[in-house]
């Protein structure tokens, strides 16, 4: 597998590994040229992989794997998973290049990740960086006019090699220095996946993750709507990791501008929300089976009664004259109140976030 160009020092590349097919192929193209590759994968807090499945009981029995780890194992490379949740906030809150269709700051995100990978590369004495990017593959971050922006703003410059479309891009340092043979690199472009699938077949890759509209919750319209609502209610664009995890759980209803209710949709979510009762005021039904609900905000007594009636509506006591609910403070103090469940037509559609 060793390329004749690499008879001297064995060169080392760090690869951005998302868990998808493109980065998997990019790594193998480099391995074919005798390059030592290790993967890097960033945890931003918005990664779709894992969270919802971990929370919802109905999904727990589905076969689950972390695709980045799976890819690394198939390729026989090490994978370094880096928690970037704190530093990533500035990307989400104030993206220099703006958002995509939702709150997805894809161009800034790519620049951030390449920059972080560059720092890791320098610290660990690797020679260059590779990604699985393909020109024209993504509407924001993988266009012929935006890919040079990532190259420049990340600070990677000509140490960033994109093996799958390198023939369509200017020569990089690894090519000029002869660490890799440009002729053996590829010239993929566009959204057509056929060339990637053919290459996957050539390499014998099976059961790789299928593209599913991105790997990030920020590309999801419903999730972005909840995040926008959170920022609007707080009057500022800030978040903590618990906030963004909570946006993936339950129904979110905002009856008043100053508070919202998160209502579990099933047993798994109820168990998950129960673990957060020290962080939020909570309401759960006592007289009838029902979901655990958390209150985010500062409700007064009237608001709490409204919230309790709303929670009762989502319990098995929705048709009952009265439902007893327990209202628990963050410190564990609780009191029971009897409320009349809201009727379906007393819940305006605009309450749903």
């Amino acid at each position, binding site marked *: 597998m060793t390329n004749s160009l690499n008879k001297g020092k064995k060169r080392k590349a760090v690869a951005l590994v998302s868990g998808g097919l493109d980065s998997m192929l990019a790594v193998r193209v480099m391995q074919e040229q005798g390059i030592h590759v290790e993967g890097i*994968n960033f*945890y931003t807090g918005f*990664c779709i*992989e*894992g*969270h919802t*499945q*971990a*929370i919802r009981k109905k999904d*727990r029995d589905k076969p*689950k*794997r*972390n695709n980045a*780890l*799976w890819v*690394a*194992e198939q390729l*026989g*490379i*090490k*994978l*370094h*998973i*880096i*928690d970037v949740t704190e530093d990533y906030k500035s990307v989400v809150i104030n993206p220099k290049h703006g958002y995509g269709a939702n709150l997805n700051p894809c161009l800034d995100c790519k620049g951030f990740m390449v920059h972080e990978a560059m720092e890791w590369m320098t610290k660990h004495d690797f020679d260059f960086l590779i990604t699985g990017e393909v020109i024209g593959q993504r509407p924001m971050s993988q266009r012929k006019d935006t890919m040079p922006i990532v190259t420049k703003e990340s600070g990677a410059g000509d140490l960033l090699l994109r093996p799958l479309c390198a023939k369509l891009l200017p020569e990089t340092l690894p090519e000029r220095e002869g660490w890799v043979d440009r002729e053996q690199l590829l010239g993929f472009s566009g959204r057509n996946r056929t060339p990637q699938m053919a290459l996957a077949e050539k390499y014998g890759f099976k059961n790789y993750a299928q593209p599913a509209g991105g790997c990030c919750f920020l590309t999801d319209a419903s999730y972005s709507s909840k995040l926008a609502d959170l920022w609007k209610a707080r009057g500022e664009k800030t978040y903590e990791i618990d906030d963004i*995890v909570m946006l993936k759980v339950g129904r979110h209803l905002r009856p008043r501008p100053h508070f919202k209710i998160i209502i579990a949709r099933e047993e798994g979510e109820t*168990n998950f929300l129960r*673990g957060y009762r020290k962080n939020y005021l909570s309401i759960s039904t006592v007289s009838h089976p029902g979901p655990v609900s958390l209150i985010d905000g500062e409700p007064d007594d009237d608001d709490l009664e409204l919230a309790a009636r709303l929670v009762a509506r989502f319990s098995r006591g929705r048709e009952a004259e009265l439902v007893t609910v327990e209202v628990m403070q963050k410190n564990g103090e609780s009191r029971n109140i009897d409320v009349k469940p809201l009727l379906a037509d007393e819940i305006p559609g605009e309450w749903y976030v």
Partner: protein
Amino acid sequence: MKFPVSGMSEITLDARNLLCPLPVIRTQNTVEELQQGDTLLVKCTDHGVINDIPAWCRINGHQILSIDEQEYEIVIKLRVGKNS
């Protein structure tokens, strides 16, 4: 800084109430501070770790010694391989 050890040591990592991949990341970061042959007990609540931590160990050269899966909690014991 490595954990102070005299001979092999056993460390416990509390990764409960963390969702994947955070338990894997915490495991990775803890293992970086340990010595070859040390053992690490990881306590978790996200059942995804049953696949993810063994996969991480396989690709990084560490050995799973046991996985104790209860309804709400999983305890994984691993032996640290050669860190490079």
